[in-house]
């Protein structure tokens, strides 16, 4: 469903993503890991259209390199931001209404209720999105918004970061359920190895913008190259 071929992102003299090739099929849950600054979010930016990239990005059989962000969203690329970006001045429900209306072209109130229920936001549906939610709820809203656009691919950028253990566990369950219920392909950035091992069939490792390993969680996390790249980050 998603094919990245030699994707490169440059900012002036800095190459943030260097010739990355990766595929995500429509049932897959693929993890994307790497030390801070390895280029993971930048890769997401390239896929969703926030950053200009070189190479080929093929989604659903179409080359989307020239498509603007909003078009990619309508085609089915959903994405959450690391720092939640709710739509200000709107309630939680309105956030979803807008996302659904523009992401799918139609309105389906039942589905919105479904998503609210699923992300545990039903009680907060009428709250102001920017000011009335706790961090875990903001993160849930990020996911809910993306779901409202009926995505075929979900890019999740560190949705668990900043949550305490209970929140994390709840989210993990939600993500597992999401994959089963909504049949989306997921590409997920996380730092927590346990989470990744639990959720993903495949893991890709970025280091300084380059893909240095790809395989099952067990393979990847025992790879000495990968461990080396992480030294100083988690496995000191």
């Amino acid at each position, binding site marked *: 469903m998603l094919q990245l071929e030699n994707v490169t992102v440059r900012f002036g003299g800095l190459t943030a993503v260097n010739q990355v090739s990766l595929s995500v099929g429509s049932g897959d849950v693929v993890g994307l890991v790497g030390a801070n600054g390895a280029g993971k979010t930048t890769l997401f930016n390239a896929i969703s259209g926030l950053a200009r990239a070189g190479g080929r990005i093929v989604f659903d059989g179409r080359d989307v390199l020239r498509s603007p962000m909003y078009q990619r969203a309508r085609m089915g690329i959903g994405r959450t931001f690391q720092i939640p970006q709710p*739509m200000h*001045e*709107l309630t939680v429900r309105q956030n979803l209404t807008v996302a659904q209306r*523009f992401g799918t072209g139609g309105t389906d109130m039942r589905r919105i209720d479904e998503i609210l229920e699923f992300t545990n936001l039903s009680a907060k549906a009428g709250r102001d999105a920017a000011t009335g939610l706790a961090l875990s709820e903001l993160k849930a809203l990020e996911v809910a*918004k993306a779901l409202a656009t009926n995505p075929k691919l979900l890019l999740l950028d560190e949705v668990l970061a900043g949550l305490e253990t209970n929140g994390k566990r709840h989210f993990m369950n939600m993500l597992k359920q999401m994959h089963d219920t909504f049949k989306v392909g997921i590409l997920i950035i996380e730092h927590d190895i346990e989470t990744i091992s639990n959720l993903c069939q495949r893991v890709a490792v970025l280091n300084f913008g380059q893909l240095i390993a790809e395989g099952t969680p067990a393979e990847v996390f025992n790879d000495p190259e990968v461990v080396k790249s992480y030294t100083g980050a988690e496995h000191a």
Partner: protein
Amino acid sequence: MKQYKLLIPALLAVYVAVPLVFGSDNYVMSLVIASLVIGGIALSWALLGNLGGMVSFGHSAFFGVGAYASAVLTMQHGVPVFLAMLLAGVAAIVSAILMLPVLRLRGPYFALAILAYAHIFRILATEWTSVTGGSAGIANIPRLPLVASIDFGSKTGNYLVILTIVLVFAAVYDMIRRSPHGLALRAMHDSDDATRVVGVNNTLLKGLMLLVSSFMCGVVGAFNVHYINFLEPDYAFSTLWVTIPIVAAIFGGYRTITGPLVGAVVVYLVDQLVVKSIIPTGHQLVLGVVLVAMIIASPDGLLALVRKFMRKNDAAA
């Protein structure tokens, strides 16, 4: 919901009571009509600011284009007046399309670019003598016609027409505001990406708001021309049509729909009845002072200030 209960009596009041009570007093009716014209412009300005997120210092461009379009259509091409007014709105849209490239400029630059456009149109109107009659202007522009035995060319008739125009525009504004498009527009001011990432085409929506705003302003300009029956470039593109609506909208509170209308009536009436008698020339000076004072004291308008004041009193009690 409470608002709708007030709506019927309010509509009755403005449509029936006002003409009944003031209809014979030409002076009062003139004041009311003029303040509604200002209100119409203020509304279109506020719509662009609120939903489009663009502050414009050049709405006189749309007003003038609408005025000239309607005048030329009725006088040189025999188009019926009401139709001409609609087409004038379309002409304003065309002029706005010319401004679309300016959308990519950031706030202050956009405001000034629109100002420059307004100047351009004024100069064009002055120089394109064959069509616009140049600086001498156009006289004897047709009045609003007789339809279904109502003479819309009379003071009361004019009043009813501009009232309807303004109310329809207010309703449209409200409709847009409540729609998903309105929601998206409001959201994109704080975060461009939050809306783009869910499929909103920000640029298109903002552009549409410019077109809607220009249409409204153009139609009001066209109405005005058939009301005063005379037109010349310095009047049509006067900075008066920039300043007064801005002061009106900010004074009344540009974030609401009623704000610009209330502001227009209050500001215009005070300006005409009070200030003009004290300072005949340069009475706009007071407008400037009001504007400056409002921005510093209460940029959300006088009503917001009053509400804040009342809340403080409630808290103290």
